[in-house]
């Protein structure tokens, strides 16, 4: 009988113990402050841990606990965390969401704190600072930036006797080479026409002279002839059998097909470097031009949660994250292109056999990712509606008509 009593007591203790374990003690007894750092890319964990180590050399009394959440759940989790006042103290923010979070007063404006500590925003590209400025206040310190590159598989080119991509390439050339390299018997596709906006159809639309969101932020440009033409070009690779179909790419990821040598070319960002560098057959070139050159530019920033209990510690950490030292860690490990001016060279050298310069060149003709308060909603419409065009179930014209209607409605709610 006593055995049962003991079991119940252990149960109860266990429950209490759990309750104790999971609610993290923010200030432990030895006077240390603990802050949490939320982000989503697992590939960047080694670099981040290195940066934290360096940070602790100067600030040994601030402990940083990392919180990795896969991208698919990241903003969802933030939404509810914000409601319950449980955001990480410092966290990653991206362009599409910053307006919503700033206006919702969920993250802190940094301009005043920067002024007080003489922290200069001139060390970063202006376009990135602008991306994270809402109502004249800067909310995030830029961490990195990325553009788009044309990744290709050298082996497939060699076997077909075709010269590698260079900066003379345009839309016609891309199509021509994709046709030459597509080999049904070997199961190789020339170009993966992935459905994605950044590094995908946004780039094509801009290259054709179109726009995504108008200057006044009241309408989208998907139904303009330039955009329709660009989307049609994008999808034509699937229609002509040069690219896996939308269904195939949903079942088996294009990036994996690319790493395994089943795709000759595809657009992708510098964040794939840690992954693609493992395959010596892969390299990258600048994206072909349309009527003009254009690639999307975007960069993440570090922001501070409005309900943080450790504003000082968080600010110290954010400053360090934006420092030259931290930038160099990112650069040397080839993880991402750091935003801090002048540190990009180290990144270029990090993987010498890859033509990483293609990404840096892109900055000159880059267009920032459009960002409004309900960017997330518009992106959802894009996915839900454009996938019908991508699966060739609906014409591009019909799809953009529906998309424009829904997106404009959403914009008018701002």
């Amino acid at each position: 009988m006593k055995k049962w009593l003991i079991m119940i007591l252990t149960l109860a203790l266990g429950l209490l113990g759990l309750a104790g374990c999971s609610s993290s003690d923010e200030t432990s007894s030895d006077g240390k402050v603990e802050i949490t750092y939320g982000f989503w890319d697992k590939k960047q964990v080694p670099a981040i841990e290195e940066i934290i180590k360096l940070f602790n050399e100067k600030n040994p009394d601030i402990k940083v606990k990392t919180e990795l959440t896969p991208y698919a759940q990241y903003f969802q989790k933030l939404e509810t965390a914000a409601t319950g006042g449980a955001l990480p103290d410092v966290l990653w923010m991206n362009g599409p969401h910053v307006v919503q979070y700033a206006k919702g007063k969920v993250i802190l404006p940094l301009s005043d704190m920067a002024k007080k500590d003489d922290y200069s925003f001139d060390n970063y590209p202006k376009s990135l600072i602008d991306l994270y400025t809402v109502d004249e206040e800067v909310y995030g310190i830029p961490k990195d930036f990325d553009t788009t590159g044309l990744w290709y598989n050298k082996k497939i080119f060699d076997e077909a006797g075709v010269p590698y991509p260079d900066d003379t390439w345009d839309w016609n050339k891309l199509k021509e080479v994709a046709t030459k390299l597509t080999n049904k018997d070997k199961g190789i596709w020339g170009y993966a026409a992935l459905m994605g906006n950044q590094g995908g159809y946004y780039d094509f639309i801009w290259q054709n002279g179109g726009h995504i969101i108008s200057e006044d932020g009241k309408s989208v440009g998907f139904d303009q002839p330039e955009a329709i033409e660009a989307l049609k070009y994008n999808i034509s690779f699937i229609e002509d059998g040069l690219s896996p179909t939308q269904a195939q790419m949903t079942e088996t990821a294009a990036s994996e097909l690319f790493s395994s040598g089943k795709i000759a070319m595809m657009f992708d960002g510098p964040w794939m470097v840690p992954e693609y560098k493992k395959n010596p057959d892969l390299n990258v070139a600048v994206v072909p031009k349309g009527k003009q050159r254009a690639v999307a530019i975007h960069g993440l920033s570090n922001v501070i949660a409005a309900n943080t209990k450790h504003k000082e510690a968080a600010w110290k950490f954010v400053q360090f994250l934006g420092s030259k030292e931290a930038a160099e860690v990112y650069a040397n490990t080839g993880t991402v292109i750091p935003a801090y001016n002048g540190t990009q060279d180290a990144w270029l050298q990090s993987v010498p056999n890859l033509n990483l310069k293609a990404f840096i060149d892109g900055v000159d003709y880059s267009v920032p990712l459009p960002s409004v308060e309900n960017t997330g909603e518009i992106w959802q419409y894009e996915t839900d509606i454009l996938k019908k065009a991508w699966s060739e179930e609906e014409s591009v014209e019909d799809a953009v008509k529906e998309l424009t209607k829904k997106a404009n409605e959403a914009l008018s709610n701002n």
Partner: protein
Amino acid sequence: MKRRSSFFSLFSLKGGSIVKEIPLQVEVNAKRRKLKVPNLSKTRKRSDFFWAYLMIAPTMLGLLVFYLWPILQTIYFSFTEWGAFGQYEWTGLDNYKRMVDDANLLQSFKNTGIYILFTVPIGIFLSILVAVLLNQKIKGKSVYRTLYFLPVITMPAAIAMVWRWLYNSDYGLLNYLLSLIGIKGPQWVSDPKIALYSIIVVAIWSGIGYNVVIFLSGLQGIPKTYYEAAEIDGAGPIKVFFKITLPLLSPVIFFVTIMSFIGAFQVFDLIFMMIGKGSTALEKTQSIVYLFYQHAFVLNDKGYAAAIAVLLLIIILIITAIQMVLQKKWVHYD
């Protein structure tokens, strides 16, 4: 002293012998107590109430906080609309009006309906078939039972993974096997026209074992005397099945049907894990609960999601009511 030992002596005995011992002791004790009964009843009743409330307290409180109150809250939320970061405001019947025009919702009803229509009858039919076969005099029953039960103890997430792989249009085993006999396999999980049926197959596959066990136990509860009588009368196996087995199994069949129906109505896991978000098959496979999840936790449209939940509630209540009526009419009890 004597009483205590008599009490404990009950526990050293097992099974039927306890029952034999008790009447004597109880009678003796009762006779001794008869005089004192009136006095004890008041304190006994109070102690009864005390213990009763104490014992049901944790469960009832828990049910109240986590289940009963939430029902009211969800109904309340269904009349609100939610903004970012958890703010919401009263919007009356807006959500319900929106439901009427929502093509996606209507489609999800159709999807769920088709799902139920195929999964429940086919699943039950196959389960009964297997159960009846297993109930025959054959060797290796427990081996079969284990094998059929394997999918039941496997988590839906893992089931979805492996079937997704089997169904892969280009590299999956299924289409390869089909290609061996010259058929070009379809896109099982990406083609909007057949994706739902692919999922139905998996649902049936993973649910058979569970119902087989229930039916088997039901079959074993049918007294052998019926079968013996039928054999004497010279009835063939088919006749036996329809005239004896089926009617006597009907309470179990009824129970399983209702449970399967309600379960199928709430399908989520399989669809969530097997259909890619960028696939056009999504609209033709989304179940009502999937849509609920989508609105509640992806689109952050919690008011509308609550309205969907209320709709689900009403439907299930109606089904339960129908079930109670039908039970009286159709089920044969001994």
